[in-house]
């Protein structure tokens, strides 16, 4: 599987990526989050073997990606660049056929026809790429990146600038790739997309600020909080509980379980014993945006 170890990349005096290590798992969607200029594209390019790290190594199935091996190893990696990069005057089919042949696929025409069917672009097969909408262009570019059935797919902002319907279409295609046991690395600014799709998230601002599942990152930064809605005002009952880490908003209690030193069933039992009518108990999940911003701020201050 694809792994990076202590990757650093400098452009002159500017350090774009510093000491980045990560290991991808088969069949996962891995999101790279970070501000503009945070090193996401540089990281993807290093993972794709397009640019060499100044220090550190990238390995694919334990084989180092070097100047000598990168051409061969790129056969197992698909890369969707930030812009679709289609030849505008070529038809959709012609665009894909060139890549099918470059990858040395045994039946290029058949493979291209199958890919167009799978990506829902067959009816536009003979249209020039220039005539396609942004969403369709992105579909063609995705089809191109996955044409050779790569084991790792690197996607640089795949839904950037797409309308919601097109973005959903692209997300469905990415989800389908995961279902086919492909590993997907996704660079994006779209936190909602990460929330919906990513198994793990890396937050990058030149250095790796955090790497975990979205839920684990939430818990690490905000703790495990429960939100309890009562039928009556919550303040008198909260005071009676005598717990730490409790905040009140009308008839709603927000309890930090770790700070309060209590489990959810115990909390509900104590509230019921105190005469509370409990209407709803749910884990409180701060949006990923809060997690991201906290990490970025912490990264900046450190």
């Amino acid at each position, binding site marked *: 599987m694809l792994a990076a170890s202590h990757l650093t990349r400098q*452009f002159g005096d500017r350090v774009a990526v510093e000491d980045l290590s990560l290991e991808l798992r088969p069949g996962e969607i891995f999101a790279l989050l970070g501000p503009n200029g945070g090193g996401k594209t540089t990281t993807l390019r290093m993972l794709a073997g397009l640019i060499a790290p100044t220090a550190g190594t990238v390995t694919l199935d334990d084989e180092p990606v070097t100047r000598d091996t990168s051409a061969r190893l*790129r056969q197992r990696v698909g890369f969707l660049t930030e812009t679709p990069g289609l030849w505008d*005057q070529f038809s959709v089919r012609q665009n894909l056929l*060139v890549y099918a*042949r470059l990858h040395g696929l045994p039946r290029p025409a058949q493979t291209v026809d199958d890919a167009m069917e799978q990506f829902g672009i067959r009816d536009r097969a003979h249209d020039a790429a220039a005539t396609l909408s942004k969403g369709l262009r992105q579909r063609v570019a995705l089809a191109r990146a996955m044409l050779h059935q790569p084991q790792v797919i690197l996607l640089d902002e795949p839904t950037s600038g797409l309308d919601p319907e097109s973005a959903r279409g692209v997300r469905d295609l990415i989800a389908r790739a995961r279902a086919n046991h492909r590993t997907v690395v996704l660079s994006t600014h779209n936190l909602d997309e990460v929330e919906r799709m990513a198994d793990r998230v890396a937050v990058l601002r030149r250095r790796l600020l955090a790497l975990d599942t979205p839920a684990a990152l939430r818990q690490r930064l905000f703790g495990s909080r429960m939100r309890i809605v009562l039928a009556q005002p919550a303040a008198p009952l909260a005071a009676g509980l005598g717990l730490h880490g409790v905040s009140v908003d009308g008839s709603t209690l927000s309890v930090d379980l770790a700070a309060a030193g209590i489990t959810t069933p115990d909390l509900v039992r104590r509230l019921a014993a105190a005469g509370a009518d409990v209407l709803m108990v749910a884990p409180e999940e701060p949006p990923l945006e809060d997690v991201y911003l906290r990490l970025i701020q912490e990264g900046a201050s450190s």
Partner: protein
Amino acid sequence: MISRIRALLGKEFLDLRLNPSVFLPVGIVGIMSLVIPFMIAVVVPAVTGERLSDSPDFEMAIEQQRVRQTPGLDPEGAVQVWLFEGFLLFMLIVPVVVATGISSHSVVGEKRARTLEPLLATPLTTFELLAAKTLGAWLPSIGLALLCFGTYIGGIALVAEPGVVSALLSTRSFSVVLLLGPLASLAALQATVCVSSRAKDERSAQQWGSLIVLPIAGSLIAPFLGVEMTLAIVLTGVAVLFVVNVVLMRVAIKVFDRESILTRWK
């Protein structure tokens, strides 16, 4: 390796079919290289009613043997051979103009259209990329140069004095068209690729690339300054260009740095 070069070469030819405007500059150069010699050697004498061999300048040139007397040719034919041989060097500039035009379109154009990065993300090696890009510009340039040469010879056969064509179909002429021209075009091509790889932006790449035409253009003036382009000079030029091409090929592969092309050009 061959299959990848062929795949990209096919793409290059399709690109040329869809962008015929790339051939506009060579169309102009080709027409000029065909029209000017016929204007001077055939049309002007016909319109003025004065044969070239009767003009004092050419009479002196014939006496001084700067215009060679060829057995079986009258003085007018000898002057026409001298002129058409001189203008034959225009056939050098045709493949060079085609090659630099296409290569600046193909290499720089890929980057401008942001189509280079997906291409570099395939298993294509630098050698394969350069080979396909070079052949994609070189083969059409040779084809067009041969077309111009055929038209040139055909036109001469139709309108020049009897015996002029056979005098022109010499080893020297074929060396110019079949060896010197293709090698000059290949050198110009590879130099453009080198410049494209190192230039900070596409405009400077194109400007530097176009400068490569200048030394070739200089050689056109030589015959009219009294420097006769003998077979020995042509073959020396062939040998020099062969060495230059080998060196340029190595340099092109070395300086075609994927990284700087990806990261330097915005």
